[in-house]
């Protein structure tokens, strides 16, 4: 069942949400500046929930194009 491995571009785009929401925690884990009254760390994560969805959508488009052009690969 050896599945086709995702393309390098897809993996790089997928790494963006990990970098933003996980590894960079030390840079955004603070209360100020408050945005719309919310602490900065919470607002940062809420924004990245939406942006992560955008990233996954971008990978979806990328991979779908590849699947179509690949001719049944």
């Amino acid at each position, binding site marked *: *069942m050896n599945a086709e491995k995702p393309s390098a571009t897809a993996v790089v785009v997928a790494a963006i949400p990990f970098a933003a929401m996980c590894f960079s925690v030390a840079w955004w884990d603070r209360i100020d500046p408050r945005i719309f*009254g919310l602490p900065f760390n919470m607002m940062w*994560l809420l924004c990245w*929930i939406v942006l992560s969805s955008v990233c996954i959508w971008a990978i*979806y488009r990328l991979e779908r194009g590849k699947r179509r052009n690949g001719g049944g690969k």
Partner: protein
Amino acid sequence: MSPRAIALSIIFGLVALGTGMGLLAGVRRKMDLEQWTVGGRGFGFLLMYLLMAGEVYTTFSFLGASGWAYSRGGPTFYILAYLTLGCVVSFFLLPPIWEAGRRFGMQTQPDFFLVRYGNQHLAAFVAAVGVVFLLPYFQLQVTGLGIIVSIASFGGIGRTPAMIISVALMAAFVLASGIRAVAWVSILKDALMLLAAVTIGIGIPYRHFGGIGPMFTALAHARPAHLTMPGATPNLGHTWYISTVLLSALGVFMWPHYFASSFTAKSADTLRRNAVVMPLYTLSLAFILFAGFSTVLIVPGMADGDLALLTVVRQSFAPWLLGVIGGAGALTAMVPAAILVLTAATLFAKNLWRPVVAPAMTDEQVAKLARGTVLALCAVSLYLAVYSSTTLVSLLLLGYAGVTQFFPGVVLGVFWERAGAGAVFCGLIAGVGTLAVLVLSGRDPFHGWSAGFLALCINFLIAVAGSLLTSPQQ
């Protein structure tokens, strides 16, 4: 009508409505094992979304997330991160699993291990570990349900009758409609849950502080350290955050019931599109966190943080609204409980009992045994919920990190031809063993690192190194 009667009749009406939807979901379909466990592999985008959202949003999100915000503070934000990153992982992992599932007729997680690695013992071990970690999780839903309903009905219905009635109704729709019931009851449950989350997330801060912004200002002023990590805890800092988010993001679809739910999809593309929109559902958790953070200043010093939210809700809202929240809470326990018990019963009947005790059983007999197991598990969990047991609490601590130990076997199995049964088996045993030793001896986090993450690293290392040593170069 007295407030108690109003709340009680609304809760009962909502639960009855949900049960009705569940019973109707399987009408006119022959409920064989394939239909019961994976819905005939015919779920489209919307039904799939409801099923997955229905599974992820459990009583833990309702009571646990707000309880963490109350008692721990900043570290709670890990929930927002791991659920989102888990969707990223699922985008790559679930479609190939679905493909394999369709080709080889897999219905459960151990089926995957059996087909990929061709090792009966490994598959049976995966099934056993799965059942051991599913049961306390199921138990948690039943206990949580009792708490929510008894508080929301102003004590009008006690914990024990609340648990017995709703578990009986839940068992009825699981037996009648299988996984279809879970998806259909989720429609009502998700709608109510969203309504309840927004109502309490905005209502509580407004009522007590005049808004969400003022609530955070007051909290940042009174407890300056509460809103960042490690918050109110001694050791849940940034190392813990990174290791726990990684562990949980990799692990979320390793729960046997999430894993198996990918088989219900109509196509691999359904799962990919699902991964695009699933993160947005996590946004609704923000409201639960607003409510949870509000409770810190409203009812300080409660020993059991999980009860903080319900206590404040009862002080703040009219009886009818309390009824709606109670009904939402009850369904939020019943839906995940349904899928948990369905999965545990199938694992037991199909992947443990048949291969070990009675290899000659037909699929029809397995389906019958699985249904019987559902009833037995419901009865046992009610007994344990009434005469509470402490061993379950420690099993629950192991659960999330425990199922994540399946990850190396799954990801290597999908993407790396050389991964071998022996190596994966050894890695899995070492991972679960390391985890059990660290957690049960109270050493989680271990030097700031999540114990489950360390166990996963060891597990991965053994699986990869073992495969390189034992299987030939290709």
